[in-house]
């Protein structure tokens, strides 16, 4: 299976996710919600698995490949949130965001060769990136909810969901970062090197910590908290791909693999 087959899987998965999101708004249609969303996830994962086999390495190296996981984890995070807290609109959010990233991959896939340099051939590689992608998905959903509240007005119940998403997202971010540190010790001899991406990851981690402590210090300052969340997500985007365009990161980051 190659990127040429992606469009068929992508369209089927997105349609299934849309159906799941639609049924979430209907009363007593929970079975359909789960069936369609999980069906979409299975279709999408089948493609990832096929690509994995075709490439003879985990598809986690290029930007296009990480976006693939991101599109997969968004509805997964959505359905877990739905199962746990029953927010009916969360699946609409997650499906829309997954659609955006699927479309980017369809129009600008950034396909690269099969090679995987020795430093990346590690059992830490897959968990490090997958955990981070899941974290990005959760925090992306939290940011969308915050932006939605800034437009429509804040509600305590909805803010509780945002906090839950941030707590779960931050725990995954911590795990992803520390897996990276443990891997770096095995691959490069030191667990932390203040590489530009690592520095930005630390700054982003501190920003999300600022958010959760701010929520505890000033629980009623909803608007400021929502803006803080949006700012933190911008920092996360910098860390994920923005750093590749930063002049100071060129050539001295161990995290820029897809630069030609």
């Amino acid at each position, binding site marked *: 299976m190659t990127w040429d087959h992606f469009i068929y899987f992508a369209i089927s998965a997105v349609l299934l996710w849309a159906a799941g999101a639609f049924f979430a708004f209907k009363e007593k249609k929970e079975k359909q919600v789960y069936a369609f969303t999980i069906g979409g996830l299975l279709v999408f994962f089948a493609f990832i698995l096929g690509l994995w086999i075709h490439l003879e390495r985990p598809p986690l190296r290029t930007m296009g490949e990480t976006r693939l996981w991101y599109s997969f984890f968004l509805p997964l995070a959505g359905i877990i949130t739905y199962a*746990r*807290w029953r927010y009916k609109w969360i699946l609409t959010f997650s499906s829309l965001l997954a659609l955006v990233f699927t479309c980017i991959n369809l129009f600008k896939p950034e396909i690269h*060769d*099969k*090679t*995987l*340099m*020795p*430093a990346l*051939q*590690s059992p830490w590689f897959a968990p490090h990136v997958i955990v981070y992608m899941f974290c990005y998905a959760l925090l992306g959903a939290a940011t969308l909810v915050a932006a939605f509240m800034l437009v429509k007005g804040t509600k305590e119940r909805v803010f*509780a969901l945002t*906090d*839950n998403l941030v*707590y*779960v997202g*931050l*725990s*995954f971010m*911590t*795990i992803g970062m*520390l897996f990276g*540190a*443990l891997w770096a*010790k*095995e*691959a*490069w*001899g*030191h*667990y*932390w090197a*203040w590489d*530009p991406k690592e*520095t*930005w990851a*630390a*700054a*982003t981690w*501190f*920003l999300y*910590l*600022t958010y959760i*402590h*701010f929520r*505890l*210090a*000033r629980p009623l300052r909803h608007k400021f908290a929502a803006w803080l969340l949006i700012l933190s997500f911008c*920092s996360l985007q910098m860390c994920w791909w923005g*750093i590749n365009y*930063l002049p*100071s*990161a060129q050539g001295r980051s161990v995290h820029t693999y897809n630069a030609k």
Partner: protein
Amino acid sequence: MWRKPWTMKEGFAIGLAFCVVGLLLQWGIGPIAWSLVAWPVNIILLSVYLTFIILTYALRKKVELLRWCMSYQAAVPALALASVLAVALGVMTDLSLLSHWTFVLIFAWVTTILGWISIKRIVHFRSWKRDIPFLLNHLGLFIALVTGTLGNADMQRLHMTAFRGQLEWRGIDENRQFHELPFSIRLNHFILEEYPPQPIGVDEKTGKMRYERVPKRFASDVTLFTSDGVQKDDTVDVNHPLAVEGWKIYQLGYDEMRGKESEYSILELVRDPWLPFVYTGIYMLITGAVWMFLTAGRKKKEERL
């Protein structure tokens, strides 16, 4: 501002004062030379630092400032400034963050707050459900940051060029100084596996196809001779370092011009005696993060009850 009780505003003012002091120190005495805190200075510093945290904690009932330091009001500005400074100094400039006084002062402020609130939780331990995750996250980060920073000066990183068939027991540090090791290494065989060559275009001069050769694996077959007379054959692979007598041996490079025919292999040797303490902190943080993921959303309900 400055009317009691203090809020976050005072926190930002204190943080900015730290920044100004940091800039003056940077300008006055230059970057922090961490090599000066090498053993046994770091263990003395650590004892003094821990004593300072415990003594100030004991004074908290008399000094309102210390009680404020242990509140969310102090945590938020400290974390926000740490984030801003990490980006401003770390990404925008070429300086190493930990050699910059401004960052280190804010970093020390965050760490000290972590120390105080960790003691507070231990002293006022009520329920494991509430306090164990809190301590895993906060005390774990405290341990990792403090031991990682103070232990950095004791870390040795040497490069060794091992020629095939020759015994080597010296490593070279970043200042081009030789160091003798307690063991020796003999390179028996250098291994290089490559991906199938990828065509990358036509050479304009010769008109022939040019191919890109990407290494798939490179490794060294070595024999180790330890100080107690033991002889051991092993392989050093990228991502699979060898551990011997407190040192770790990493595969770093080779003669890239000659590829498979490389006569030597470049190894990196690392000794980090503080690593077990840093790892204790890291594993506490990982456990705390897993715990946070499993219990997110339940905390609020309990608080309401």
